[in-house]
């Protein structure tokens, strides 16, 4: 690593010296190094290396805070373990805060004090971003979204072709002859968004949701340009870039005069748009923002769609995406949709707010240099799935779908991975 310049260090430390509120100062002063958080972290549990202990991750940022922002740290750095921000420290931070944490927040709930460890990890990532030290692989994903409007850099022409192909394919199915996938239609109730992995690798999940919209007689549209629900600015720690990406969707809703922005099945994208987006933008949304799972549940509860759980007869389990459940409050919403759609549902253990991350969160799927680690920490999830005996794993997050698919292959689980839209579409009962 090149020697850090004063400008880089100052930019990073500014984040610690000028906190926006009392949250940062609180969590940087609260850890007591009890070490009891270790067992709640999938990295520490599977890799068994002390550097992955959540308290050590907090300590990285806190030691810098003490060194530069506290009197004791300035006078007696050895007493309180106050560290200099130098090249060695930056390298350790990159390895552990980017490559050794999915920011799933499981350790937060189980921390004996209540330190928001995931939040501190993101502050550490913000510091690295301020120094221009985001791993190139992750930054490339963000750059693609900034430059093309979607994180995979899919050209509009290719996207439109895929949508038209999916529409024709769907219309060949019985009961869906008149179903459409509208593009850039103004004045709709719903502007629906996608994870770019859908048009690229999982186009059937688009037609699955189109079927649900058709069955519910919804007024909806996709944008042909700004449809990407993901926001890797949440993971690279650059709030400015996260704000630009959030603005893509914000402006598209206004442009197409849609009433509601519906977030496709993407955990971090939903979080980054629903919860963090207004803060990145510095303004509240002028329209309603909801996840697609909540919308589907509205259809079920109001009778706009009818489901026959017997059409999904195989044993199904649910993987709770961290950003939708532990960090998004959709614990029961996910269960409602899944239970209404399948005949044989079994929970993982643990599940819900205690569920383990799949290992693909935090931008891990974008950082290929940590692939080996990512698959190793997924062992916990693989064992959880195997223990349920389920043949189908449902999860409303395309990053989770990706990671779970790789885990199924790597650990020979032999399970199908589906989104909620897919399992709901499979259970749809169409009126003749």
């Amino acid at each position, binding site marked *: 690593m090149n020697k850090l310049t004063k400008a880089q260090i100052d930019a990073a430390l500014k984040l610690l010296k000028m*906190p*926006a*509120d*009392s949250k940062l*100062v*609180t*969590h940087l*002063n*609260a*850890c*007591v*190094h*009890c*070490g*009891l*958080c*270790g*067992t*709640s972290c999938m990295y520490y549990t599977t890799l068994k290396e*002390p550097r992955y*202990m959540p*308290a*050590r991750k907090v300590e990285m940022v806190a030691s810098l805070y003490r060194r530069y922002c506290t009197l*004791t740290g300035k006078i007696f750095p*050895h*007493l*309180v*373990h106050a560290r200099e921000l130098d090249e060695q420290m930056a390298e350790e931070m990159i390895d552990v805060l980017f490559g050794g944490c999915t920011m799933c927040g499981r350790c*937060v*709930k*189980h*921390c*004996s*004090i*209540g330190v*928001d460890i995931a*939040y501190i990890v993101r502050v550490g990532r913000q510091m690295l971003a301020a120094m221009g030290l985001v791993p190139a692989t992750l930054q490339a994903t963000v750059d693609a979204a900034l430059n093309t409007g979607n994180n995979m850099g899919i050209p509009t022409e290719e996207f439109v072709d895929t949508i038209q192909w999916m529409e024709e394919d769907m219309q060949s199915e019985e009961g869906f002859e008149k179903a459409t996938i509208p593009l850039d239609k103004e004045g709709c109730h719903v502007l629906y968004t996608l994870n770019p992995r859908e048009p690229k690798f999982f186009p059937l999940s688009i037609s699955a949701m189109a079927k649900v919209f058709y069955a519910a007689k919804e007024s909806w549209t996709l944008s042909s340009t700004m449809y990407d629900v993901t926001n890797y600015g949440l993971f690279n720690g650059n709030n400015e870039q996260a704000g630009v990406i959030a603005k893509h969707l914000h402006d598209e809703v206004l442009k197409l005069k849609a009433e509601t922005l519906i977030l496709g099945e993407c955990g971090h994208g939903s979080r980054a748009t*629903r*919860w*963090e987006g*207004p*803060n990145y*933008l*510095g*303004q*509240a*949304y002028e329209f309603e*923002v909801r996840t697609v799972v909540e919308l589907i549940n509205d259809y079920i509860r109001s009778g706009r769609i009818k489901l026959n759980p017997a059409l999904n007869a195989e044993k199904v389990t649910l993987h709770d995406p961290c950003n939708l*459940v*532990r*960090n*998004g*409050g959709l*614990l*029961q919403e996910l*269960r*409602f949709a899944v239970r*209404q759609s399948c005949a044989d549902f079994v929970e993982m253990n643990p599940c*819900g*707010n205690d569920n383990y991350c799949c290992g693909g969160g935090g931008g891990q799927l974008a950082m290929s240099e940590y692939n080996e680690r990512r698959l190793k920490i997924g062992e916990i999830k693989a064992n959880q799935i195997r223990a349920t005996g389920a043949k189908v794993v449902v999860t409303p997050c395309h990053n989770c779908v990706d990671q779970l698919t790789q885990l199924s292959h790597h650990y020979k689980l032999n399970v199908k991975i589906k989104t909620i839209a897919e399992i709901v579409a499979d259970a749809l009962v169409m009126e003749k």
Partner: protein
Amino acid sequence: MDWYRIVALCAACYCVLVMGLHFLRLIRLGKPKDLSRKSGSVAKGVAYSNTAAMMPNQKESAYMHLPTYAAGIVFHLGIFLSLLLFILLMIPPVEAWLFSLEWLCALLAACLCVSTVCGFVLFFKRIIKKEMRELSHLDDFVSNLSTTMFQLFTLLAMCYLGGSRCVSTAYYLVCAWLFFYLPVGKLRHLLYYFAARYHLGFFYGWRNVWPPQKKENHE
């Protein structure tokens, strides 16, 4: 007033002052300004964060580490008891009344004996276990030892303070050291612990994660 009592009193005042400044800074910085549309209740989240969320069955840090968790709870109860006794002993009429009740002093000493042992257990665990040793730095050891000695000397005070000048001097000097050191290192979590619970309750309450949602009737 004896000089060592004055020293302890001054240290306590300094401690309250500095911690008060920390508290004022938190107030000045204010709570998070979240522009997203709230889904749950911050008040309920904060209440849950400080009550049910702290129950041992809710935390792996508790139910997967019961001996350490229990030792930590007893240790902290001992600290708060010692702090209470320090305040009482600084008031001469209360001090005289307290030492007139031998059975109460014996009971308090017994409680402090248990909490002191817990303090030493946690201290030696930090030294002996490799992952704890690697996680710890000087401040952790000084903080742990200071609070354990505080309890040990409160225990001794309960046994001997009425008649021993030597114990009195040592007790008040240990108290003075603790109060002097408290705002310096991690013992500051005396304040930041409560702030952390607030922020956690705010975060999860806003997003309707806490209190946990009741199961919907799916039938």
